[in-house]
């Protein structure tokens, strides 16, 4: 049981970080960013290039991923989403744009980084073995702690920084925030850049554990959507809760249901359908509570 809980917590921390970026973008702009998974993959490849190809320290790779994805996110918001949102009142326009960006990023990643699975060497060697009750490699523990630290840092940023408060105001009521003097365009761009940066950071963190490949973008987006549906779209605490709940469900399911074949996600999806039928807004309700 201890092993199941440890696996669930580790999975939950990485999932929550993935979901945070997605929910931030959704709350600020009402955009379902289908390219979130591709941004995660892009971030992983940036870290891989910096660490494995250029031989620089892992932390440099991680910072490079954060910077590249923040710039990419900012540019995507300014030159793609902003004009589309301004000109089109239909929500599906931004959905189609996001899907288009996902395909575009897939093609760019293939061109720049190739089709192969990539990974960087372990950043910490050794395995924690607590009396055979919990077996956890030290690098996973480190990545889990880093993920939780980033989540806490993000919450503090949103709570106490000027930009964070502006973005929260924007998420609560876009019109009211604008009337109160919040620069909507500026903070939308910062929010999108921050969301993309979080995706890039997770990609950079996990490239040391799981590696990265071209095909990981789509499934990652699906899992991220799953998490924010559980927690409630556009709610930070909901994304975190959704991430940890999904991680724990996966860990428990893979251990307890192993004898019945690969039915863990079947059970998760069935449970989610029932849950959404009862509580369609997810656990935490509306944007920012």
């Amino acid at each position, binding site marked *: 049981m201890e*092993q*199941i809980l440890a*696996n669930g917590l*580790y*999975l939950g921390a*990485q999932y929550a970080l993935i979901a945070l970026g997605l929910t931030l973008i959704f709350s600020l702009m009402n955009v379902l960013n289908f390219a979130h998974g591709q941004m995660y993959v892009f971030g992983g490849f940036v870290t891989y290039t910096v660490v*494995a190809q250029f031989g620089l320290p892992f932390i440099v790779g991680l910072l490079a991923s954060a910077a590249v994805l923040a710039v990419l996110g900012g540019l995507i918001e300014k030159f793609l989403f902003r004009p589309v949102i301004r000109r089109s009142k239909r929500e599906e326009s931004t959905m189609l744009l996001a899907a288009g960006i996902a395909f575009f990023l*897939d093609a760019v990643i*293939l061109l720049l980084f*190739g*089709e*192969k*699975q*990539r*990974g*960087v*060497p*372990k950043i910490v060697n050794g*395995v924690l*073995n607590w009396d055979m009750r919990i*077996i*956890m*490699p030290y690098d*996973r523990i480190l990545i889990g702690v880093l993920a939780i630290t980033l989540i806490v840092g993000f919450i503090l940023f949103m709570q106490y920084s000027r930009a964070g408060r502006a973005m929260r105001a924007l998420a609560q009521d876009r019109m009211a925030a604008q009337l109160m003097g919040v620069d909507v365009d500026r903070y939308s761009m910062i929010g999108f850049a921050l969301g993309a940066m979080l995706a890039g950071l997770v990609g950079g963190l*996990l490239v040391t*554990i*799981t*590696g990265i*490949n*071209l*095909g*990981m973008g*789509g*499934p*990652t987006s699906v*899992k991220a959507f799953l998490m924010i549906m559980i927690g409630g779209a556009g709610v930070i605490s909901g994304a975190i809760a959704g991430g940890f709940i999904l991680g724990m469900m*996966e*860990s428990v399911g*893979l*251990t307890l249901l*192993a*004898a*019945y*074949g*690969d039915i863990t*996600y079947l059970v998760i999806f069935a449970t989610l359908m029932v849950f959404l039928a009862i509580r369609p807004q997810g656990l935490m309700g509306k944007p920012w509570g």
Partner: protein
Amino acid sequence: MKRRHFLATTGLSLGLALSVTTAAWAENPVLKIGFVGVTSGPAAAWGISNQRSMETRAAWLNETGGVEIGGTVYDIEIVAFDDQKDPKRAIAGMEKMAQDGVHYVVGPNVDDGAAAVRPVAEQNGIMYFPYAFPKELYTPPASNAILGMVANYQSGPAIYKHLMDNNGVKKVAFVAANESDPLSQRDGGVEAATALGLEVVSDSVTYQVDTTDFTPVLLPVIQSAPDLLVLSGVSPANAPQLIRSARELGYTGLISTETAQDATVLMEGAGDLANGFISVGGASTPELASDAMREFVDRYTKMFGEYNDESNTKVYALEYILETLKANPAAITDVEAFKATMDTFEAPNPFMVGDAKLSYVGTTSFGQKRQVSVPLVVNEFRDGKFETLFVAQVD
């Protein structure tokens, strides 16, 4: 006036460019060979190594004057279609090949895609070379598919027997992705292991291909304490993570697979933890490779930046098509002539040293010759590269 002058110059330049291009193409007639396979998504490495092998070999042949078939010299053009590992897309790809008048297609790469295109290929007179293992594709009454590699039910027993004899393996566990290819390979592996007298201690654990943490997946498998852990049909993307998780959980036994892997990917993803991992290699080793094979590797690397060990096998399909057409030029438009030639076909193998031959095999497994003959090379990963464990031949 200036505008008119500009338009006239542009028109003239375009006309000249077009005529030069047409003249260049008109030098040799073009023989189109198709590829329908997966070049995107998690299994992209399988199809891309196919496509790039074909493109490298075609460019090489065209550069050296083309291929003479029945007194006519052809330039080879590769027509590629990404089926995205989706059977519906594979059907669309094969239909496109039929519309383009292509009679010889390499691919698809996976079981369901290869099975899905069968009616289209048979109705449109297309011979195709899948990298998929369902026996019904190659056994009568089917006759248009030719297996492009060694199947898992041929390599698996050879590997298990070797490990029983040399490493004293008695208990085996299987883990597979929850997809048609790996699951069918797992079932074939379980059957082969049981037939050899091995005790199968775990065969029900499966995983999603997008799994990011294999620790919970492998925990029950490792607890069953196998001597050999078989990663059935594992993709190059998942293999390093599975190996790493198994070793980190304290597993010290042997790990093997019947699919081809990539040494760089294993090294980057699992490092020294992958030492001792046994896999089916590309159909070449330094001892077997001819000068032509080395030149192929060199050209591939120059064209695409990085070589893929799987291309040691995937270089062969195009060679078999062209050499069989040379043996019977009527087969260019008539696949029945191609089939008739296969039974007696034999040609020098340019990619192996000695007097190795290209020929069709498969009578033992399929009751007819519907498989290309390539060496079964079983590798062991050691310190960043593959070392040959043993080499065998299949019929």
